């Protein structure tokens, strides 16, 4: 029992561990973003996928055929904004040689943000007049109407380079196969783990998993992207260290070459004596008790009660 009214449901027993881990990741990321603002020499290794992006834009420019970009199918979220920020790099290259670009969106909010970000690129390059508002298009928010629309467009305009970046689902192969049939170079990346093998088989180059986030950090050298990428690296190292420590502790507690016995076990957030010693299981190890907080049903919290007449009009009518 924790004495007077406990500090909070999610902090009861070992619940604080998850909250602390989340807070640690937040601190790693925000601290590194601040650090990246002050120091501009933070190192990020160049991922091979980026050479493929520049080659693809170069090829489209030679052939004078359009570049088709699809920022994925998800709603306006972290992935869509990240995909569009990679596309701003592509558009900056293409805008210099007036290569036609088409950016197809499947979500209205993504369409609005894409409209803004692509217009910013033309602004920064000082060629506001060459910006065509219909180069950023909303096709449909239905997954397969969108697939039909985009593959029809790739076929009709005979696109030379296609970039499929972001959250893709089953329709990803329709784009990749259609782009293949017109002989376009394809650089793709899906944050959906299950779509990546299809991209690997059908596209020329694929950024796997986190390389998608690393791409925009490397391309733009933006303090925010560089800082958050380093913060993410620290968090991954923290996970690696946690797993190594966890493996060592669990191996020791379970017993190397002999099975340890335990005499007391934890239930309802308190250690209780066992009737007879029994072999330890994975759920009894300190690490898993840390990860899985227990709720003590017997905690009674005395709180003033609502006056009777308004009681039923409250939450649970």
């Amino acid at each position, binding site marked *: 029992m924790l004495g007077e009214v406990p500090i909070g449901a999610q902090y009861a027993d070992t619940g604080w561990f998850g909250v602390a*881990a989340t807070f640690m990741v937040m601190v790693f990321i925000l601290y590194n973003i601040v650090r990246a603002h002050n120091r501009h020499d933070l190192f990020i290794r160049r991922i091979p996928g980026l050479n493929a992006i520049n080659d693809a834009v170069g090829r489209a420019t030679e052939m004078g055929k359009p570049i088709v970009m699809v920022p994925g199918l998800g709603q*306006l979220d972290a992935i869509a904004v990240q995909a569009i920020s990679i596309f701003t790099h592509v558009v900056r290259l293409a805008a210099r040689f007036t290569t036609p670009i088409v950016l197809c969106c499947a979500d209205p909010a993504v369409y609005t943000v894409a409209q803004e970000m692509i217009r910013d690129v033309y602004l920064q390059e000082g060629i506001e007049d060459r910006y065509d508002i219909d180069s950023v298009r909303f096709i449909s928010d239905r997954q397969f109407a969108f697939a039909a629309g985009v593959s029809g467009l790739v076929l009709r305009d005979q696109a030379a380079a296609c970039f499929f970046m972001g959250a893709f689902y089953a329709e990803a192969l329709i784009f990749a196969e259609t782009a293949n049939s017109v002989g376009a170079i394809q650089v793709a990346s899906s944050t959906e783990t299950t779509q990546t093998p*299809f991209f690997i088989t059908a596209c020329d180059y694929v950024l796997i998993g986190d390389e998608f986030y690393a791409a925009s950090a490397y391309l733009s050298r933006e303090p925010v992207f560089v800082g958050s990428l380093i913060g993410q690296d620290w968090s991954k190292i923290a996970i690696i260290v946690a797993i190594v420590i966890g493996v060592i502790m669990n191996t020791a507690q379970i*017993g*190397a070459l002999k*099975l340890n016995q335990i005499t007391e076990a934890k239930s309802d957030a308190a250690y209780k004596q066992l009737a007879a010693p029994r072999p330890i299981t994975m759920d009894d190890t300190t690490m898993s008790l840390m*990860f899985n907080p227990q709720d003590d049903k017997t905690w009674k919290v005395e709180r003033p009660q609502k006056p009777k007449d308004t009681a039923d009009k409250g939450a649970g009518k």
Partner: protein
Amino acid sequence: MNPGMQDFLNAWYPLIKLSAGVFGTVGLYSVLYKENKFYRFVEHLYLGLAGGYSMIALWTETLDDTWYSKMVGKAATHADAAVPGMWAYAILLPIGAMGYFVFSKKHNWIAKIPIGIILGLYAGQQVQAWWNHYGPQINKCMQPIFPTTLASFTVPSKVGLSPAQVTAINQNIYPSQALSNLIFVATILCVLSYFLFSFELKSKFFKGMTRTGRLALMIGFGAIFGSTVLMRFTLLIDRMYFICIEWFKQGILHMR
């Protein structure tokens, strides 16, 4: 609806409905051969019907119940007491209207306010959801890598043993299980090291780790490709079932 028309529809409507579906399916499949007018017709028919439905579904499936009826409340009926209306929901109409300024050259910045609310709510959700998704999985990666008994290399068969013997076998970790756990831990550590970007992995050991990480990724992706291909064909079989059985056999030939 006059009875003549009603009988006609009762008899023929199911077949008309199936035929409309088959017409569109064949039209869309025609793009497999090459992009053609028939495909483009069905494509635009589909975009229009889908857009029309999405627009109406927003009102019928969401705004009518979650916004309008909560705002105005519901009068008492003999079955239910009156439900008071929450007038503060009305503020959402002007905020939603701000989104439509995206088309105006001068004021398109204001469209960022409703998007800002949605983005902010989404961002807060991500911080909250991370631990429930990944915490238990990180914990599961902490597998014991030493055997607790050297009685036999692999797990002995439990056929025809007393329950006490079976539980004893289940509690112990045999060398083959310990080896598998070691492979599990090695794979997760190699794959995580492949995704480290903020320092150059010069030493041979790290280079070896990232190369094994990439090989493990390929096994993972191969398994994903295999199980996903299996399911892709199911969707095609479902279309064949729709055309061959539901439309042709049951619709036209009336065979059950």
